[in-house]
């Protein structure tokens, strides 16, 4: 793990998955907009990482980004009026939208919830 993988300009992409970038962009924007403080974000992410470690998740970048998503859900619920159930329903709606959209066509959310 401690390989000095370092060049000035990284050869691998900064983000291996689009959602990694989207998740960090959302977190940073919520801090910049003042919806949550930087300290709240750090504490929540730290707690999510601790939880992942305690549950035996491997010490990988994947685990890290899963903790980011977990923390993002937590701060969204505590820092906005969005509730857990709403996030769950919206995820279900996106899943259905993807499954019912023929490959190659834009995926559009049909429900409001």
């Amino acid at each position, binding site marked *: 793990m401690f390989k000095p993988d370092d060049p*000035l300009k990284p050869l691998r992409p900064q983000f291996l998955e689009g959602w990694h970038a989207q998740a960090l962009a959302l977190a940073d924007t919520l801090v910049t907009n003042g919806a949550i403080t930087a300290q709240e974000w750090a504490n929540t992410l730290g707690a999510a990482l601790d939880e992942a*470690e305690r549950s035996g998740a491997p010490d990988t970048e994947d685990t890290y980004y899963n903790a980011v998503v977990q923390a993002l859900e937590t701060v969204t619920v505590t820092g906005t009026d969005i509730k857990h159930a709403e996030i769950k329903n919206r995820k279900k709606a996106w899943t259905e939208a993807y499954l019912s959209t023929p490959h190659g066509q834009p995926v559009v959310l049909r429900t409001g919830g």
Partner: protein
Amino acid sequence: MTRFDGEEAAQVHRHLHAHLPSDPALRVKALESLLVERGMVAPETLDAWVEAYSEHIGPMRGAQVVARAWTDPAFRERLLANAAEAIKEFGFEGHATGNLKAVANTPTDHNMIVCTLCSCYPFSILGMSPAWYKSSEYRARAVREPRKVLEEFGVSLDPEVAVHVWDSTAELRYIVIPERPAGTEGWDEARLAAIVTRNSMIGTHRTLTAEAE
């Protein structure tokens, strides 16, 4: 140093061809659409952030800061006194790190940075942090046994060199100013910046060389 990673390539391949996004990707999509609807975030802000951190913001920013600190003693003094203020003169687009502390290596002192809580890092001047910086192993061991961790990075320190480990927080991030290597006398900032590695600014690389371009 970068090598082909078959599993990583396969993962990217699967990602490109799978129609239904992964579970965390769907969770992020759900959050994003709800936050956009509520007016908490603007899609164009997110797009600009992703583009900036994917394409433009990286360790070359920090390297420019280090190069100037090597060539301009007055700047070095300002940087060590108040790094956030001092780097304003670079005019980096986007928001730079609000609270930043620069710590300088010397022949008798070595500095390294970590975030023991999560992954606080001076993103705006070093770009995204490397995977190992975010690992729980580095976060725990950098404080507990810094010399051993440094050895694993190939950094062997003489016993008389003191190691200072700086624990980053949401409010205060750090950048290490490595020592200027011998043989670089008369070089301009751009040439100097090209030999400054990202890890040297985190403190997991110590001895820069004039040839390391």
